[in-house]
Every structure is written in structure tokens, then in C-alpha cells.
């Protein structure tokens, strides 16, 4: 039996990171994510890790990449304005294949927006925030216990696929406290990056003949290699020629899109006989679950699809749902973002209706129930 605690979502993320083996945090404090930095500042020195408060979010993301190259599992936490600043370096981590985890506790935006209110309007930014075609894994947990286990999964996926992983939840989920059982060490599986077995002189950091995820050497363990944001060859030095650019970019995307069966995760509630489906995540997903319960009491056949992996998007699942329900309702704390993906996958096979809210309050179950009745 693990340790029982009452924790905030943010604290559960920090606990999950430590459980996963994170020993390095670099960040710049920002509401509503600051509790993660606060927790790590206290905890990491106790376990031989390091906490660095950087001069801004750009530097924090750079430090996380450096920490990971040196062999530490590394985390940063931020919110919208800071997440915007991190984008360039998130792209750098994607192209240089440096595992790391970025938490975005979403508040209202754009700009500094509503620091203490919840938002879900960075969800497209999680996918498209940095320029160029790049792989993205983004997890969207909504319960404190789930934040803990999904943070462990985020680190595992980052290490397994040598890629940055984003965790995105809203302010309400980040600040809310619930009971959590922190599992004993060994209960949840921990994945560590595959290291090279060859000698340092033979090591090629981006050797695609070793599979889609080439082994990764940690610096200061005898291996040295070139790390650049330019497209590069197997040795890490810039290559500005066909076909290497093309094949390497395809490999980067394939690491994620080709492993959707391993990465995509979701929860379905009463979907079997549902005539109306709700697609919702974060606090909107929690609200939708309460709405489903209320609707079922009135005999309305409605179910909930709650993605725990938002990117890569659960395309096949949403497409299958769209062919068997009358309508999909998408409540989100934005003016309509993730609904675009749902529509793309539904391809007109059913109605897709949104509930959008950006006034700093969550979409409540009554709002969702009313919309379900309207479309059923």
C-alpha cells in the first residue's frame, strides 16, 4: 500500500516526475503552475537532484535540454505566456531528439490573459506551437491520481521515443486537491533511454540503421557528439541535402505516428449504447462525466470519450464513434479548437456541436446536459 495524501494536481505532477526518476527541473515561476517549481525546489536537492530558476522561460527550456543531454530526466512547468516562449526550444528538442517533459497548466489567454483562471486554449499550440513538421506527444490528465500516473507515463514515452512530451491541463485541475495514493517504488514501470553499446569512437547519435529511435549516449560518460538544430546526418553534423532531410523528418514523425497503439490512451464512459457522445478533457471532461450521469438518470443515451493522449490525436477512435452516434458534443474552455480535430475525424458522419467558454469559469454539467438534449 502506497502513501495516502491530499495533493494538488500540480503537486501530483511533481511527485509523479520524481517517481519517474526526474532529477532536474529548470523553470521560471508562473501562475498557475508555480507549485510544481516550489515542490521541485524543495524536493530535488533532497534526492541529489538539482533545481534551477532561470532568467526566463526560453532559458529554462534550454536548461532542460542540456540537463537531459547530460543524462538527467528533466522537467519544466509553465503556463500560456511561458509556453509561447519555450516553443523555439521545444522544436530544438524534437529535432535533436532530446527526451524531456514540459507541463503547461493552461490559463486564459492570449498574452498574460487571466493568470488565475482556467483555460484550454493552448491545445492547438501544444501541437503546432513550434515551427516545422515535428513529432508531438501531449497528455491531458484530469484527476490528481491520473496526473501522477500520466506524468510517469510522460517521462517513459519521452525516454522511449527520444522526444519532448507535453502535459497539458487547466488551472482548475492543477490547483484542485484530491486524495492520491503514491505507489511504492517498482509498482509503476519506469522506462530509461537506450544507451549505445558500441565504443565512443563508433557512436553515431542519429544512426537510423539502428531503428527509428537510435540509442542515446549521455554526455560525461565518454561519448561526445554534435547537437544542432540544423537537419543533420547520422553523426549529428549538418546535412543540407536530399534524401537525408526527407528520410530523417519522416523518421521523426514515424516515431510518434507509427506508435499510436502504444501512445494513444483514453477513457470511455457508457459509450457502448450511446446515441450522443461527448468528447472532453481536463475540467470539461470531469464536468461531462457528471453530465453523463445526470443524463442517464433521465434515460438519455449519452457517453463520454475522454482523451488522456491528445496528440497524437485519437483519430481512429473518433472516426469510429462518428459513424455510430447522432452527434458529438465538444465542450472546451476556448472559442473552438479541439472541435476542429473532432470535425476532421468525423468527416460529416454525425453532427459535431461545441460548447465554448472563456470567462474564467468552467463549463458546468448543466450546460453540457442542455446541449446533449438539444442534439439528441
Amino acid at each position, binding site marked *: 500500500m502506497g502513501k*495516502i*495524501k*491530499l495533493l494538488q494536481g500540480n503537486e501530483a505532477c511533481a511527485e509523479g516526475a520524481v517517481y519517474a526518476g526526474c532529477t532536474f527541473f529548470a523553470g521560471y515561476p508562473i*501562475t498557475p503552475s508555480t507549485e510544481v517549481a516550489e515542490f521541485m525546489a524543495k524536493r530535488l536537492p533532497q534526492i541529489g537532484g538539482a533545481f534551477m530558476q532561470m532568467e526566463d522561460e526560453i532559458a529554462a527550456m534550454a536548461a532542460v535540454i542540456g540537463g537531459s543531454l547530460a543524462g538527467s530526466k528533466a522537467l519544466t512547468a509553465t503556463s500560456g505566456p511561458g509556453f509561447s516562449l519555450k516553443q523555439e526550444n521545444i522544436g530544438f528538442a524534437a529535432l535533436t531528439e532530446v527526451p524531456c517533459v514540459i507541463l503547461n497548466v493552461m490559463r486564459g489567454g492570449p498574452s498574460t490573459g487571466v*493568470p*488565475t483562471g482556467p483555460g484550454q486554449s493552448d491545445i492547438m499550440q501544444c501541437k503546432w506551437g513550434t515551427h516545422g513538421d515535428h513529432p508531438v506527444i501531449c497528455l491531458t490528465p484530469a484527476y490528481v491520481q491520473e496526473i501522477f500516473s500520466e506524468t510517469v507515463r510522460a517521462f517513459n514515452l519521452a525516454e522511449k521515443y527520444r522526444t519532448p512530451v507535453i502535459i497539458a491541463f487547466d488551472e*482548475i485541475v492543477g*490547483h*484542485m*486537491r*484530491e*486524495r492520491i495514493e503514491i505507489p511504492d517504488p517498482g509498482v509503476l514501470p519506469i522506462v530509461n533511454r537506450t544507451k549505445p553499446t558500441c565504443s565512443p569512437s563508433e557512436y553515431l547519435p542519429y544512426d537510423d540503421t539502428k531503428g527509428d529511435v537510435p540509442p542515446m549516449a549521455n554526455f560525461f560518460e565518454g561519448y561526445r557528439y554534435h547537437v544542432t538544430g540544423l537537419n543533420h546526418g547520422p553523426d549529428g553534423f549538418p546535412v543540407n541535402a536530399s534524401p537525408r532531410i526527407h528520410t530523417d523528418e519522416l523518421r521523426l514523425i514515424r516515431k510518434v505516428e507509427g506508435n499510436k497503439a502504444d501512445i494513444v490512451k483514453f477513457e470511455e464512459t457508457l459509450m457502448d449504447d450511446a446515441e450522443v457522445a461527448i468528447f472532453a478533457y481536463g*475540467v470539461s471532461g*470531469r*464536468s461531462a*462525466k*457528471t453530465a453523463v*450521469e*445526470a443524463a442517464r438518470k433521465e434515460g438519455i443515451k449519452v457517453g463520454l470519450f475522454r482523451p488522456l493522449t491528445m496528440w497524437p490525436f485519437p483519430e481512429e477512435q473518433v472516426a469510429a464513434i462518428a459513424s455510430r452516434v447522432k452527434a458529438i458534443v465538444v465542450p472546451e474552455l476556448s472559442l473552438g479548437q479541439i472541435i476542429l480535430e473532432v470535425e476532421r475525424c468525423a468527416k460529416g458522419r454525425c453532427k459535431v456541436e461545441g460548447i465554448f467558454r472563456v470567462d474564467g469559469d*468552467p463549463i*458546468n*454539467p*448543466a450546460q453540457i446536459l442542455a446541449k446533449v438534449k438539444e442534439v439528441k
Partner: protein
Amino acid sequence: MSGRYEIRFSGSGGQGLILAGVIFAEAATIFDRKTAVQSQSYGPEARGGASKSEVIISDSAIDFPKATEIDLMLALTPEACLKYYKDIKPNGTLLVDEDFVKETPKGTFKVVRLPIIRTASEEIGKAFVANIVALGAITAMTGQVSLEAVEKAVLSRVPKGTEELNKKALMAGFDLAKARMS
């Protein structure tokens, strides 16, 4: 949503109402082993402004984490009272500080007035324990969590050296509400 009990603690930022909510939720979950969720809402300022903290206690899983049909709401300032009272459910209770919230809105809920801040400053001697006095009163009025659990949760959360003070404040609030209820 039967079996769901919703409490909202409201007042001014800095009065310790978020902490009061955390302690109450901790009493419910850790010490009384019930299901509870605590959430909060506050403005950008560290002090002042209206702030609220909510605790939902239930005998089953809690999904929507915010209060929408409040069983009991505490208001320590007139501003918070007016801003947040609208979600109190019919026959719910509005608990106000009787010196600071002179006028209360009309509604289908009961209004209970207790000298919470005065008890903290005069009887206990420290105005800053008003949140714990309120917690004592709410423990008595809601009956959702045992006094023992709340006491344990208070003692695990307050700064070292203030345990006796806070215990006294909790009991003072509990007795104040019991006396009013009898």
C-alpha cells in the same frame, strides 16, 4: 448528485480561507476516509479581493469539482457574500460574520450570523485564527466530518508553536455554532 455535500468558504484574500478548505478536505479524506475535492478561486492579488475555496464531500466519486448547489456557504466579507451567494441551494445555509457582514441578500436559504472574527480577536486573542474559528463552526453545522478528524488536520497544517492557539480557536468556533443550534 445525491450524497454530494458542497461547502464554500469565502472572504478576502489573506484571511486563510483557502487553507480552511484544504484542512477541511484533508480531515474528510485522510482522517475520515471519505471522498472529497477541494478547489479554489482567487484574483491576481495576494491580499484583498474576493477569494473562495470550495470543498465537496461525497459518498461516491466526484467528477465535476466545483460547487453549483451549495449546502453551506461562509462569508467573512460583504464583498464575498454578494459575489458568491447565488449558488446556495434552497434551504441551504449562509453563515456570515455578524460584525462584518451586516446586510445579507434575500433568498430561500437560512442565514446564520456568528461573531467569528470577534471570537478570534477577543476570545483567542489573535484575529488571524478567524479561519480556524470558522472551521470549528462549520464542523458543528455540517456534521460532515468528525471534530477529531478536523482537529488532526488542523494540527498537521498549522505552523509549529501555534498548535494550542489553533486548537482553542477550533473549539471556540465549534462551541459557538453548537450554542446557536441548540
